[in-house]
């Protein structure tokens, strides 16, 4: 328990540093802004109570907001992502359920499962984030293009990180 708290605390700090120092500076032609820190919400254990999940999502978003100078924007998106995570997990659950004490990882459940899982949550998160950012429905499809392209990059980076974790 303590171990996992420490582990997730470390991941948390690393991800935020990664996001703030590296990914926030990636901007391809105004369409691509990868937000990789979402992986923190992805990796939290299955058994985590939903209230804690929501609080942690909120905290993640809030800290990113502080560093990006956009109060509330990332928090809203991460809270939404944290809210839908249990439902997505339920939809994606294998026939005999998730293994006791396991984390949602590529190692345990395979690449395809992890890709679907990541794709759905990142899509939800990015959709919320980008539409909150423009805060209007004019240029709806332009925003949607941004969502899709950024999701593509975010998912790519998340998969890379997950590969790296597996290799360790």
């Amino acid at each position, binding site marked *: 328990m303590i171990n996992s708290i420490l582990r997730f605390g470390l991941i948390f700090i690393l991800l935020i540093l990664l996001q703030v120092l590296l990914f926030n500076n990636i901007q391809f032609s105004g369409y691509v802004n990868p937000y990789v820190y979402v992986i923190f919400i992805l990796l939290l254990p299955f058994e985590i109570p939903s209230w804690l999940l*929501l*609080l942690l999502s909120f905290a993640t978003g809030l800290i990113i907001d502080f560093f990006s100078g956009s109060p509330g924007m990332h928090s809203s998106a991460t809270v939404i992502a944290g809210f839908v995570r249990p439902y997505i997990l339920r939809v994606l659950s294998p026939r005999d359920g998730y293994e006791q004490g396991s984390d949602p990882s590529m190692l345990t459940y395979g690449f395809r499962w992890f890709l679907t899982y990541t794709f759905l949550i990142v899509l939800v998160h990015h959709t919320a984030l980008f539409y909150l950012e423009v805060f209007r429905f004019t240029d709806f499809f332009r925003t949607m293009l941004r969502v899709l392209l950024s999701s593509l990059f975010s998912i790519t980076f998340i998969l890379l990180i997950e590969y790296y974790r597996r290799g360790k």
Partner: protein
Amino acid sequence: MRSLLNFLARYNNLIIFLILEGIAIYLLATGNNYHNTRVVNGIRSLINGIEERINDTRTYLNLHTINENLAAENVALRSSIGRLIKRDNSLFFSVSDSIYRQQYLHASAEVINNSINRQKNFFTINKGARQGIKVDMAVTSGNGVAGVIVGCSENYSVAMSLLNLDFKLSVRIKSNGYFGSLSWAGRDYSHAILSEIPQHVAVNAGDTIETTGYSAIFPEGVMVGTVSDFEKIGGDFYKITILLITDFKKIHFVDIIGNMKKTEQLELEKLFQ
């Protein structure tokens, strides 16, 4: 209470989500200028929309009162139109008599009953109170004096003919302006008597006699007749016989003249009597 707790336990997920999301949106709306403006504008337009709906509803609910007001206004406007427009079939039309600065209303009527052979003759015309005829209006035939309305029913009026012993009219000699009192002697339907003309006044046969307008019934200058004969009787006055211009035997179409300022004049005069 227990069901409330159950509810909270069941939806705690959703409730926490909504609280956190609310905080995030609040931060979003207050912390960013752009979002703040958007939210404020959005809320304002939302509120404006709601107020418009409320206003619409209120207007709808007040339609009854509004209708009543409109109806009242219609009535007022219609009556003012009635006052303003001269309709072709209207009974009265205004004549601004610029010479004498009096305003008279005119109407035409038909004589439907007439007598000339009594001492107190009356004739009946086919218009009454409903057509605006009132007591004490003047009746003329062509351009000569015929009588005075003395009674009105709804659609008929009775006029006292000039050929009535009670009929008195203030008239004057047109050429010199001396005025006297006209009355009927009770004998001849074509002649009347003009009295109270002093003897020093020059009177000639054929002089025109017209009304003075002192009575407030007849307008000034309505023709009565011409002098046919005059004689000096005892006292200082002439007895002038007037040949009436109105032929009462064949009187048929008459004009009725109402003096709009009669009441004003009479009330003023009453103060000094």
